[in-house]
């Protein structure tokens, strides 16, 4: 089909179908192995998170435990986005259009959590509102 809109031009070269490879080639098998390795990492990280949540979180300072959880979650997110969603294979500028807003989002998160705890502090310390 060669009719395409004036704006979109010919997209047929962009479809990922052109990575034509045989399902039994060593290249394909290597990719499948990588997928299962990443799965193993994700499982291990989740198990560690649950163990920390069950046994450590009551006894260590909350700040260290929570930082640990956040780091492990971001690590999982990084692996899923880079390998499973294939973002790691895209053009750098495309990757940036996804990553930069998300990094700014982290600022959003920190700002609002600090805002919430500031409200708690100020409500405890001042009776005049």
């Amino acid at each position, binding site marked *: 089909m060669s009719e395409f809109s004036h704006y979109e031009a010919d997209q047929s070269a962009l*479809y990922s179908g052109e990575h034509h490879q045989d399902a039994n080639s060593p290249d394909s098998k290597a990719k499948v192995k990588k997928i299962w390795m990443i799965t193993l990492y994700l499982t291990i990280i989740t198990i560690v998170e649950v163990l920390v949540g069950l046994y450590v979180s009551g006894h260590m300072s909350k700040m260290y435990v929570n930082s640990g959880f956040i780091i492990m979650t971001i690590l999982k997110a990084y692996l899923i986005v880079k390998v499973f969603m294939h973002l790691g294979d895209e053009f750098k500028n*495309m990757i940036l259009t996804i990553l930069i807003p998300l990094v700014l989002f982290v600022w959003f998160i920190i700002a609002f959590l600090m805002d*919430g705890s500031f409200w708690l502090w100020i409500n405890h310390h001042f009776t005049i509102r």
Partner: protein
Amino acid sequence: MSTVALESNKKVWGGGQSPFNLSYGKIMMWYFLMSDAFTFGAFLISYGTTRFFSSIWPDANSVFKSFPFCGDMNLPLMFVSLMTFILIISSVTMVLAVHAGHCRDKNGVIKWMVWTIIGGIAFLSCQAWEWMHLHHHNAWWGAFRNGAGAESLPHFFRHDVDPVLFASGGADAAHKFFNFFFTITGFHGAHVASGVVLNIIILLNTINGTYEKRGHYEMVEKVGLYWHFVDLVWVFVFTCFYLL
């Protein structure tokens, strides 16, 4: 293709081609996922802000400690870990389906898509059980107002919680906690459900040979991106509600 793109900015951004070397549909899926990420993020941040603003809050290990068919056993976080594992595995089967699509292996795509759909339905069933179980303990949207359901309240907090804070703010905290919990997991569950529906449609198309005829399995990739996003959101919801 990529060497041409690197040659000059004018060629890349001059129109008539995709600057990122990606098809329109795929780029739009990524940006839809970004917008959805902000929506979920806003929900989770409002949960976090409300929680930081509270002097007392339910304890995740106390709220989420039951397991189907295990009656009264105290198994904190075990069921939700199983749910997380199911969703991650369904994400893995989805990647394998996409990989099979790259290899133009129609039967491989069918096999892995079926497993992904089964994983999605399993997750939804688990979530439904969790909701039903909490509802039986008086938890729901708008719960714990005006003393309603107060007999369940102590079970949702740590056993060493400050009794003064609990008496003055426990019901209110539980009310807010469950409003957020059901809203956010409900919104996520709706995404899982719509993802399962989309996966079924794509599976049927694959079986009918639509993508063989088209020459590529990019639709499987696009729906795969959506499914991974759903998994990713769960990873964050799991962290915020059950761990932090």
